[in-house]
């Protein structure tokens, strides 16, 4: 052996040995590092599941788009097709284009045998409906034989509601039908369609027998066209566009309906994506605190590596390689779970989707989930890892405390770069995943604010612990609290991780209970529970006295007048529609308005004044007054004082906008976009809505049956049934919300474990030292108990308070409703989280029990 000749300092010849070193060096820490890095596991799973599901649904929609519409082109109108439309359809049919018709309207369905009644959605279809997809019935023959007579194929739910069975007679208006079967699936209808209103299919030619359409009930008339593949539906539509618009015919092509649905799905998945993003960020916090612990364990090794010639870059490379490998594994596990969940999701949301979702692997979602996961894991891991660069080789000679050894200068540029990259990554991911860049920024800012508030609370906790400890307290309590502020304490990381978890879980819970609570409160606020509609002008008084004769009060008798807007401030709707603002739904829609001279309790004036001659803008103004819902006014770009001219079934009526109202639409009462001063509409043709209060279900059923027999065209809704229906839908939604809440709770566990593990080594060392000095295991256990109890309580409290702020913000600005704090459940969640902290803390600290004082002495 001889000394080598002096050689110039050369860069490494090969990177392979460094990778090998990184792999070997990770030997005993792999499992632990994997645990830390896998904090991102659930976040990645959420992203992959959501993205894959969205892609699956979008593709299924594309594949089934024709059956979604039932044809290639749909023409629909709220009134029977005008003559020019009919002649267009005739000419198309003569030219060989298959044509199907669907007429939909609401009707009371009555089973005479049982006397049961229920409001149903009637669809009268022509023989060739639908062109695409198949209606499946039980028995199958029922659908095939629908047109053979006065047959009705109905939703199974209707049979239950009417206490009827297949073979019974069903009356719709004045028509009588035989129930020949039940519906299993209807292409293009989501499963909930049956919950919202049971469907009844009858043959088109029996519509006149019901006599319902002649009464002016609301109906939709639709013509479906089947076109050869070579024909673009737009070539048929374009030449007739002005005529169709004038006739108020809405047209939809397969591509349009597909685009609409895809858009809706995208909105949904964007929302879910934000939840996934937050999951991922929380995971990132877990990674950061876990890797922080990992880094503290590596100080000695790094010091030696530095002594034997490792550059700071090489040290960083070794540990970044390890973190990246484990991050990749964690993300890959997340991807696997995400793909698994993706196969489950369609079953959960099947009822809400109008298509059957075929599940398949989405490579793009898998790859992007993997990349985003690894990136988030790495960028969060890098924050503690860069500190390893500052470990001096001197530590091998003279060991400082963990915190001292890792201390960095504030302006250390790689640290600044990593921090910048971290913030930039969060913002970039938030912006790309949210619906709009603005929303993304809001989410990122919200997360930053929550983190900041929690960080400040942690700092305050540390300060309070330092000042608050009193000499008279029991030793274990003093020692436990002192652990909160002593060097290398875990207060900040635990408060951040646990507080953020508490924040998420409680915010979700509060928003959910607030939304449901609001809903039930609104329902309870309505006095009436039975609503009659489609009441003709000549029937209103008769119905009113019939209800009163039965012994029940009529709460409201409200006239309804159908109309459309003709002009706004002298500009015709047609001209308006050529401008961007004229494309709003509010411009072209059909309004069903009312007139009255008093406000009802579900509305309040937010601008201008209620109709009042004394306060008219100018005494000379003879125009009748109009009050609009503030949302509609915004859509129409109108303000108090503007003039709006209406087309009331052919008669022009000009009004001046005198007030804007805030309307609580959640109330089960007839509410209106437009309310007119009585003199404007008194003479117009109208229908009525009646609201009655009837004490119990039997009485309601009896009254409904009596009214249907006397006025077959009048429909009625039992509000308690509607409430039940809504509750059923809401419970399906809240199942999803609970799942999310549980998900964030589960997600908190690895994050919290990581945070606690960050200072575990220090804890064990101290515990063993205390044992050496004569502390019993019991005393050490109590010290830890005191520390984790204080940490748990404070972090949960900070997170819970923060969640009240978050939930208030969401209710106020997103759902635009009043926020009602739910203190007790929030307290319970906080207690649960505190218990969880204690459990995790004590589990992590169990080594303190195991280690013997001899071990401490041997360590030196």
């Amino acid at each position, binding site marked *: 052996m001889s*000394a080598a000749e002096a050689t110039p300092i050369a860069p490494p010849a090969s990177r392979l*040995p460094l990778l090998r*070193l990184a792999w070997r060096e990770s030997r005993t820490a792999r499992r632990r590092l994997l645990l830390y890095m896998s904090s991102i596991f659930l976040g990645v799973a959420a992203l992959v599941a959501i993205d894959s599901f969205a892609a699956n649904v979008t593709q299924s929609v594309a594949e089934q788009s024709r059956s979604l519409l039932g044809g290639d082109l749909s023409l629909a109108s709220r009134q029977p097709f005008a003559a020019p439309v009919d002649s267009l359809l005739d000419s198309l049919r003569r030219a060989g284009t298959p044509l199907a018709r669907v007429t939909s309207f609401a009707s009371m369905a009555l089973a005479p045998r049982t006397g049961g009644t229920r409001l149903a959605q009637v669809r009268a279809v022509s023989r060739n409906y639908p062109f695409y997809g198949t209606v499946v019935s039980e028995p199958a023959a029922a659908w095939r034989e629908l047109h053979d007579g006065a047959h009705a194929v109905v939703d199974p739910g209707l049979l239950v509601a009417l206490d009827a069975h297949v073979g019974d007679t069903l009356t719709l208006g004045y028509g009588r039908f035989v129930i020949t079967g039940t519906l299993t699936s209807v292409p293009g209808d989501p499963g909930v369609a049956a919950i919202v209103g049971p469907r009844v299919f009858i043959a088109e030619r029996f519509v006149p027998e019901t006599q319902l359409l002649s009464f002016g009930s609301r109906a939709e008339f639709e013509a479906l066209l089947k076109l050869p593949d070579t024909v673009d539906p737009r070539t048929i539509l374009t030449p007739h566009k002005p005529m169709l618009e004038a006739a108020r015919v809405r047209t939809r092509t397969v591509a349009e309906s597909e685009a609409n649905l895809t858009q809706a799905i995208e909105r949904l998945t964007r929302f879910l994506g934000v939840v996934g993003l937050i999951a991922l960020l929380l995971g990132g916090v877990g990674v950061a605190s876990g890797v922080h612990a990992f880094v503290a364990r590596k100080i*000695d090794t790094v010091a030696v590596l530095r*002594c034997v010639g490792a550059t700071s870059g090489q040290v960083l490379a070794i540990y970044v390689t390890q973190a990246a490998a484990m991050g990749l594994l964690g993300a890959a596990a997340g991807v696997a779970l995400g793909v698994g969940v993706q196969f489950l999701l369609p079953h959960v949301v099947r009822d809400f989707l109008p298509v059957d979702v075929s599940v398949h692997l989405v490579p793009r979602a898998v790859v992007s989930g993997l990349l985003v996961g690894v990136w988030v894991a790495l960028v969060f891991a890098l924050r503690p890892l860069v500190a390893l660069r500052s470990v001096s*080789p*001197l530590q091998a000679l*003279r060991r400082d405390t963990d915190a001292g050894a890792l201390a960095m200068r504030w302006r250390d540029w790689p640290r600044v770069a990593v921090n910048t990259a971290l913030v930039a990554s969060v913002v970039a991911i938030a912006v790309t995943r949210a619906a709009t860049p603005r929303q993304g920024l809001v989410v990122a800012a919200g997360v930053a604010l929550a983190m900041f508030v929690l960080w400040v609370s942690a700092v305050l906790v540390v300060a309070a612990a330092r000042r608050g400890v009193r000499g008279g307290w029991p030793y274990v309590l003093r020692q436990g609290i002192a652990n909160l502020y002593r060097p290398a304490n875990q207060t900040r990381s635990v408060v951040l991780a646990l507080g953020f978890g508490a924040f998420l879980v409680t915010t979700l819970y509060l928003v959910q209970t607030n939304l449901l609570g609001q809903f039930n409160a609104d329902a309870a606020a309505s006095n009436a529970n039975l609503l009659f509609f489609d009441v003709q002008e000549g029937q209103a008084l008769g119905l009113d006295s019939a209800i009163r004769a039965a012994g029940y009060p009529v709460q409201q008798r409200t006239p309804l007048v159908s109309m459309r807007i003709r002009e706004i401030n002298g500009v015709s709707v047609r001209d308006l529609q050529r401008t961007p603002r004229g494309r709003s739904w509010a411009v072209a829609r059909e309004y069903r308005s009312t007139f009255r001279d008093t406000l009802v309790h579900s509305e309040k004036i937010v601008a201008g004044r209620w109709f009042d001659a004394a306060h008219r803008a100018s005494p000379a103004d003879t125009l009748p007054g109009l009050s609009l819902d503030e949302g509609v006014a915004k859509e129409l770009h109108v303000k108090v004082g503007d003039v709006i001219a209406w087309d009331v079934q052919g008669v022009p009526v000009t009004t001046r906008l005198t007030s804007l109202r805030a309307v609580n639409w959640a109330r089960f009462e007839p509410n209106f976009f437009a309310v007119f001063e009585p003199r404007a509409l008194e003479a117009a043709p109208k229908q009525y809505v009646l609201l009655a209060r009837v004490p119990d279900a039997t009485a309601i059923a009896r009254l409904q049956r009596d009214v249907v027999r006397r006025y077959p065209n009048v429909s009625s809704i039992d509000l308690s049934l509607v409430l039940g229906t809504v509750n059923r839908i809401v419970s399906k939604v809240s199942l999803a919300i609970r799942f999310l809440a549980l998900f964030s709770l589960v997600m908190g566990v690895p994050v919290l474990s990581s945070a606690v593990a960050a200072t575990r080594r220090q804890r064990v060392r101290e515990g063993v030292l205390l044992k050496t000095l004569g502390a019993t295991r019991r005393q050490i256990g109590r010290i830890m108990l005191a520390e984790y109890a204080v940490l748990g309580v404070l972090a949960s409290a900070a997170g819970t308070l923060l969640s009240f702020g978050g939930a208030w913000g969401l209710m106020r600005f997103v759902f635009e409703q009043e926020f009602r704090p739910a203190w007790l459940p929030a307290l319970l969640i906080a207690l649960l989280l505190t218990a969880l902290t204690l459990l995790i803390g004590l589990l992590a600290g169990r080594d303190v029990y195991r280690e013997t004082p001899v071990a401490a002495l041997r360590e030196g």
Partner: protein
Amino acid sequence: MLVARELTKEYRSGGGALAVLRDVTFTIPQGSFVAIVGPSGSGKTTLLGLLAGLDTATRGDVLLDGTSLAALDEDARARLRGEKVGFVFQSFQLIPTLTAIENVQVPLELRGERGAEVRARELLDRVGLGDRTSHFPAQLSGGEQQRVAIARAFVNRPRILFADEPTGNLDAASGARVVELLEALNRESGSTVVLVTHDAALASHAQRLIRLADGCVVQDSATDGANGLLKVAASDTLTSSVPEETPEVSA
């Protein structure tokens, strides 16, 4: 050759500066075996840190084979250490997650050199641990761990080896074995060995002795003449904790 020129190290303490080393100057020729001695707090470890480029001096410079350490940044010094410097520590400082042979390979692997395993095996054989290459540090005795550390220190054929109390954590027999090994490798490889210790017995193995007190060189046997070393060995206790009847003292 290792040259220390007016090395001064100060720490900020309160308002003023606390000098731990003051104007330390000496030259150590290539291949020599030098002991730096002094009581606790005399600045031995600080000096070692500066000589090895683990730390930077407040003033003065260290020339290692003609390269000024003051002119190098931390990473360049690390590379220089990787190529020319070996370390043996009191607490062995083996990487607990690596086996004996992997520990020895580390300096070569950091330089991206191939054939690290062959060279590491050769050195483990040399220190008498050829049969324990795949043991982890926790599975080795203290003496064995220190021999692995010595193998690691010599694996890159260092120009200079720094040993910081290399027998401090060992029993007498293991300590003696370690010292013998250091001496033998110093002879065989021609590497300079700089030993920092407060153990007079250990120091007596060195060819030259530099004594520190309060951050200054108070004795250097190279300048005091050959007798200096013997004088120390015979009359002095470097610290009270070292038993004087250690057999090597009178040898």
